[in-house]
């Protein structure tokens, strides 16, 4: 195996090329520009389509059109750009097309900043666009994992005719790690029975998200939901660390998950029985596994780089099986392991109760002046 040092954004872009990306359409926004830049050179080099669009609106709708041809297509952006793309994401979902989207999250709301954040969890996992649809969202914590999820994202998108999102933050986009990339594969354009690629020798096809007859639109919605049920059944992914004998479980995804890993190890070295559950598919969320985990630990700490967006999914899964605590950093701040270690120590000393609201307790701690 040959490992090479790759920057996250570039590794993801190159992985997409190697697994047969045929069209990329994007718009510059930090901290994901290296994806656009890498593909601006690579795609023409291998004779594939690349367009720097006039806006994220343009980009997502170019991807929408390109997906209609049945080709493997992708776009990428960062939080404010994703907000702008939500219109197109909803249309793509309504048209039932396979599209891969890379979201390299940054601090917000608004223009915010370009620092790493996880503030897009809600807008990506739970809509953002109008209507009832569910993107498949994969949240890697390392560059190798991100690279490995690229072919999977395409496969899932194509299998379920669904949007698949790789959700990372600026730090994974910008950092470098040793990576083994997939081999270059030949492009195989699938002959989908729905692709609008010219009605040569066949009946014409129409791709649309418009269903004026409400009963038919309801049927489409039900079909999407049945498909989502399948996805929930088949496509749960997560990683567990030190959970066998754990009394405290930390739950975090992506960068906050890997930062928590350092804290868990430090706590273990102090004799605290703590482990880490790191969801990789955050949508579908591993609710059953988290519920089961809640049944065998004394308390759960959720760590995020937002104000508890995934926490709500954890709360739904956990119910009153275990008391919850939350620790979040906001606005582009990445927590240091010591901060999370402090939370673990606090919980180990005084286990939280089932009463009250973990978000309120966290907010009170965050806004109380330190002694």
């Amino acid at each position, binding site marked *: 195996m040959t490992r090479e040092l790759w920057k996250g954004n570039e590794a993801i872009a190159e992985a997409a090329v190697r697994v047969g990306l*045929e*069209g990329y*359409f994007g718009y510059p926004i930090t901290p994901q520009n290296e994806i656009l830049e890498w593909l601006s050179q690579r795609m023409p080099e291998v004779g594939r*389509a690349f*367009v720097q*669009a*006039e*806006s994220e*609106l*343009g*980009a997502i*709708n*170019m*991807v*929408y*059109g*390109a*997906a*209609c*041809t049945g*080709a493997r*297509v992708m776009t990428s952006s960062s939080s404010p750009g994703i907000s702008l793309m939500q*219109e*197109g994401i909803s*249309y793509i979902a309504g*048209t039932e097309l396979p599209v891969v989207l890379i979201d390299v999250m940054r601090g917000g709301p608004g223009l915010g900043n370009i620092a790493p954040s996880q503030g897009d969890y809600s807008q990506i996992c739970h809509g953002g666009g109008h209507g009832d649809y569910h993107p498949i969202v994969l949240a890697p914590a390392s560059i190798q994992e991100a690279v490995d999820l690229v072919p999977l994202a395409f496969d899932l998108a194509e299998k379920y005719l669904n949007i698949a999102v790789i959700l990372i933050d600026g730090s994974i986009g910008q950092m470098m790690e040793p990576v083994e990339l997939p081999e270059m594969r030949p492009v195989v354009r699938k002959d989908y029975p729905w692709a*609008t*690629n*010219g*009605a*040569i*020798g066949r009946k*014409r*096809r*129409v*791709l*649309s*998200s*418009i269903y004026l007859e409400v009963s038919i639109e309801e049927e489409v919605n039900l079909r999407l939901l049945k498909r989502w049920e399948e996805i929930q059944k088949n496509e749960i992914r997560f990683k567990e660390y030190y959970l066998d004998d754990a009394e405290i479980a930390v739950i975090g995804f992506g960068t906050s998950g890997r930062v928590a890993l350092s804290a868990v190890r430090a706590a273990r070295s102090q004799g605290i029985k703590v482990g880490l559950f790191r969801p990789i598919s955050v949508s579908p969320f591993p609710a059953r596994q988290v519920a089961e985990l809640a049944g065998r630990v004394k308390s759960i700490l959720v760590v995020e780089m937002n104000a508890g967006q995934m926490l709500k999914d954890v709360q739904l899964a956990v119910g009153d099986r275990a008391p919850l605590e939350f620790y979040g950093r906001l606005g582009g701040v990445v927590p240091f392991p010591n901060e999370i270690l402090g939370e673990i120590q606090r919980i180990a000393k005084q286990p939280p109760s089932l009463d009250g609201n973990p978000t309120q307790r966290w907010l009170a701690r965050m806004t109380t002046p330190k002694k």
Partner: protein
Amino acid sequence: MATIVQLENLVYSRPAAFTDTPTHYCPGCTHGTAHRLIAEVLDEMKITDRTIGVAPVGCAVFAYNYMDTDFVEAAHGRAPAMATGIKRLLPDRVVFTYQGDGDLASIGMGEIVHAAARGENITVVFINNAIYGMTGGQMAPTTLPGMKTTSSPSGRDVELQGYPIRMAEMLATLDGAGYVVRRSLHDPKNIRLAKKAIRTAFEVQLHGLGFSMVELLSTCSTGWGVTPVESLGWLEQHMIPAFPLGDYKISPSVAAIKL
């Protein structure tokens, strides 16, 4: 009567590129005329089976029901972006958008300008009837000064609501545009000229000569609150002075192609 169906007497029939579907357009609307011209051109060029249309949001939202080509339905204003995506993946196919003035000149201004600037090899048929038809006759970016609409009930006040946008003139300034003309659908002579322009626009695409657009001055008797016949006169009298007919961009390479 029987003789009329004999081939030598046949002067008018449904183009093959039309589906057997009655349109939903209001009586007297020129959308039907524009659709027919496109279908006739597709027939003549024998490109129906390799053409992919992009329908807009607006009155022509159901354009995909009427033409016998593959079709996709875009979000409001985004047809040129969607067409870009399709054409870049399928360069040997013919891709066209069909857009109204609200779609193209208001919400989709960014997409159309940049598709033209990039010289995308797509063809745009732009229906300018100076009003939002589908949503109930509101002021469009092409509504004339003083013109009454449901959102400019006292007439478009340029002090408050600005001036109409001349898209053909604007897009003609872009180097990526190969062919940009304005025609009208208010009488047979102009309809024939419009068809010729649509033919040329598709030829431009087949020759790979960049972005092509035919702006068609059209009527909306319902939105304008006049009879269909009156609407034709109204178009000639009021719209043509504001939106002069003519060729705004014929690039040297387009001028060189023989039709």
